[in-house]
């Protein structure tokens, strides 16, 4: 890995943040159905202030994952999140590509 890649690597960032004493949550794409923007195994890492690096979608659901991650950091219990097609009438975030993803969010302890 080059230095630039290491800097952007979510799990390396999670390690660094934790080392600095920050609270950290790791979100991981664990399942996808149909067209999904990021493959299974992709990570988004979030700190207690809502800073984040990496991605679990093309930007469609990161906002929702970050706010759920703050809950997970607070409560300490992992969560499984499901995102499907965006439903504009229900004002829910979703994936415009028509796919469906499951994201597992856990705290780094």
């Amino acid at each position, binding site marked *: *890995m080059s230095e630039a890649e*290491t800097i952007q690597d979510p*799990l*390396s960032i*999670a*390690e660094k943040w*934790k080392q600095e004493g920050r609270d950290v949550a*790791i979100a*991981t794409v*664990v*399942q996808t159905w149909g067209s999904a923007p990021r*493959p*299974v*195994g992709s990570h988004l890492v979030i700190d207690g202030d809502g800073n984040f690096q990496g991605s679990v979608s093309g930007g469609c659901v990161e906002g929702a994952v970050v706010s759920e991650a703050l809950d997970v950091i607070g409560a300490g*219990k*992992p969560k*499984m999140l499901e995102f499907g097609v965006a439903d504009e009438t229900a004002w829910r975030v979703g994936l415009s590509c028509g796919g469906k993803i*499951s994201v*597992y969010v*856990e*705290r*780094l*302890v």
Partner: protein
Amino acid sequence: MDFQLLKKLNAERAARRAVIHVTGVDDDDEQLVLEQDDISGELGEAVVRAFNSGKSSMVEIAGRRQFLNVYVPPARIVVIGAVHISQALAPMAKLAGFDVRIIDPRTAFATEARFADVDLAAEWPDEALKAHPLDAYTALAALTHDPKIDDYPLQAAIDAQCFYVGALGSRKTHASRVARLVEAGKSEAEIGRISAPIGLDIGAASPSEIAVAILADIIQALRKRKAVAP
């Protein structure tokens, strides 16, 4: 995730070793599995499949969901010889998603002008490989025909269990190469891993066509790779 486990995971990835992080998403438990670990039962079978395919997935074992996240080092190709074929192979391999490194101690061949934007080492292979050693996620293609340059990296590639080892040269050239490798103590099975004549047999004639044949050979070896037996 446990912080100590994350540190171990990051260390394994930095060392270019394959590793699987298993999370029991229903139970909130986890473990790290290395390629040499012997795991029994259904999880063991799932782990072997995951190492072979390099694909992360959710599996259900005894009614509990286990997420297997596979971290495989990015594949790379080390080419010995800054020759005409390498000039075609380097950009093709990059397009296909490989990291490419070219090593040739002959400074007339290994020039910036002939290899723009390529990681090029104008050094003897033993020196060049000291800084960046070969590993199981590296393919080695020896293209100089010159035993003084090719023989050392070929042996190093066998020792490092590179996922692909290929050597350019006629059957006659290869026969004398085999004799030298036997002399150096390599077994028949080890020598048999060398793809020679190099490349898939597609009747390639020009340097660019030979580069296609070599790249296809390497991709086949990568995608049909068998995990190292436990």
